[in-house]
């Protein structure tokens, strides 16, 4: 099978998958009930007429299938609808808040990858030594601590006690720190990025170390040693590339699930990202936002999986496309 043929097949499959997801998500949100009624019921002063008007405005008086078709049709044209709470286009909100999410997630993953590589290589080169044991133990500890706990600990130490970094937000409310918007933004990123890096590093280190140890046992590594290749070059030239394949899957999951894990970090640091937006939308039954973000998560996962599969085929000559 040709690579393009493979990609087309996967694309068609992805479209069906997204269709299924959209039906399920829509049905779930729909099952909660009419958000206008629920929201406005808490305000006794509002007339039934106003409720009916808004219900009609958002198309909530139509049967569910009609509404699904309307929503899906709009979605296909790139129209995610309008937030009930903020009265802004959902797409616009997702992109601007999404940028804030990327701002901490991407560095959190990339820094972790670099750190984990260094740690895993160090550990694998001295298998079962004290260094190896130390790296493994701290990675396991890091992985078993709950996410919010580390975030709160960081805030406690670096904001509350030491007062070095801000504990919430992406920018200063009033004037930027040191009069520079860039420095201000970077300074705010430090703690959330640190928290994300912490978790990603722990998981990636464990994964890479076990892959490396596994590959270093292979005869082709011994063959490289027998030919006189220094250990460091064996690790970077032979072992690491082979060890990175399973890591790639994990990385793609990290990227794909970024929006799914963002709520914890962004709640802890009151970070104006999609995760924060999502949590708020759920609390306030802002259904166009809930639907939009959920679909965005699904699309990201599908795209990332597709890209990973393609990358696999390109990296590993043994993978057959059938």
């Amino acid at each position: 099978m040709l690579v393009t043929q493979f990609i087309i097949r996967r694309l068609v499959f992805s479209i069906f998958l997204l269709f299924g997801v959209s039906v399920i998500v829509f049905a779930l949100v729909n099952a909660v009930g009419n958000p206008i009624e629920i929201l406005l019921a808490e305000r006794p002063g509002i007339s039934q007429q106003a409720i009916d008007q808004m219900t009609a405005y958002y198309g909530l008086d139509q049967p569910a299938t009609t509404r699904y078709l309307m929503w899906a049709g709009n979605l296909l044209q790139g129209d995610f609808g309008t937030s009930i709470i903020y009265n802004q286009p959902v797409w616009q909100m997702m992109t601007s808040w999404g940028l804030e999410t990327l701002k901490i997630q991407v560095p959190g993953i990339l820094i972790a990858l670099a750190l984990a590589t260094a740690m895993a290589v160090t550990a694998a080169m001295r298998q079962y030594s004290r260094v190896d044991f130390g790296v493994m133990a701290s990675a396991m500890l890091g992985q078993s601590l709950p996410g919010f706990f580390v975030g709160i600990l960081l805030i406690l130490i670096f904001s509350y006690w030491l007062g070095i970094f801000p504990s919430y937000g992406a920018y200063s409310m009033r004037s930027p720190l040191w009069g520079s918007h860039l420095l201000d933004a970077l300074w705010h990123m430090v703690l959330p990025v640190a928290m994300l890096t912490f978790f990603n590093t722990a998981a990636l280190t464990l994964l890479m170390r076990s892959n490396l140890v596994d590959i270093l046992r292979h005869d082709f590594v011994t063959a490289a040693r027998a030919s006189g290749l220094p250990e460091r070059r064996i690790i970077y030239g032979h072992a690491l590339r082979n060890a990175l394949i399973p890591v790639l899957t994990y990385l793609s999951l990290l990227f794909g699930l970024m929006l799914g894990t963002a709520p914890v970090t962004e709640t802890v640091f009151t970070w104006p990202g999609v995760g924060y937006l999502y949590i708020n939308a759920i609390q306030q039954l802002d259904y166009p936002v809930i639907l939009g973000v959920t679909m965005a998560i699904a699309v990201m996962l599908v795209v990332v999986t597709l890209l990973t599969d393609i990358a696999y085929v390109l990296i590993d000559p043994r993978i057959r496309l059938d």
Partner: protein
Amino acid sequence: MTGPLPFPARDLLEVRGLQKLYPVSRRGMFRRHRIGEIRAVDDISFSVARGQTLGLVGESGCGKSTTARAILHLIDASGGEVRLGGQDLLQTLRGPDRKAELAMRRRVQYVFQDPYLSLNPRWTIAQTLSEPLRVHDLLPRPAWRDRVIELLDLVGLEPHHADRYPHEFSGGQRQRVGIARALAVDPELLILDEPVSSLDVSVRAQILNLLARLQAELGLTYLFISHDLSSVRFLSTRVAVMYLGKIVEIADVDRLFEAPRHPYSRALLSAIPVPDPDRPSARNTLLGEIPSAMNMPAACRFHTRCPRASAVCKAHEPPMEPGPQGSALACHHPLEPPAP
């Protein structure tokens, strides 16, 4: 090589008292306790003359691969000395002189049992064959391609194989690549660790023929490890028989196959169990299990399975005694020497 050697007729590879012990420890509550050791290779000595082949045979787990890897310093020997053309091989490979180490590595190369595991699955054959050229800085990069083609030709592969990946080859072709990689640096000695054991019988013969041809053409010296006796007989000049980390007998291949003197050699080499002339009831099949490397029998290690074992065998370890024509034997009650 430069300068006259101290012994003109010296063998190319000389191994003296080679030993590899693996400590066995158990993790206690606070620290590890050493509870014993596995004597994987226990004080073995042998030599291989230039242009000849020494076959190393023995049951699985007797220490053949450990011997091979210790010689190449892929694992650190616990004791002993290895000389190549009179030069201290282990000392050179232990460093710190990297130039000397590389020069030594070029002279001795290793061929692995499983040619699939020994080739990087994500490298093309050309990449695999170029690696030694790069490590040893033997040729300018533009000349690598020609050398790769030349090596492929040497082992009976086609130029168009260069850009393929290991998974596109059959087992026999992969082993040809493994051999080509070893030859890339123009070695003098090849350590062949069961190079045909993973191959089909028909392919086995082709690879053995290839090895024989290469030896004749390039004047190579082989240490040929195998438990396939017919391959050993085909390729070897002399044969060393190993049992539980010890060499028990070394002799010329025909002598050993026709008239083994050590009871273990006899048992190992006899395809059909032959009645022992001295003890008519005993058959030369191997009795019982191989003892575990952890609980090595005292004195002669073979006494738990030996049909000729006596009290002295359980009390004293038989020393390795040199015999005629460079043979050697370690047994208190050897079988009769062949009639002259």
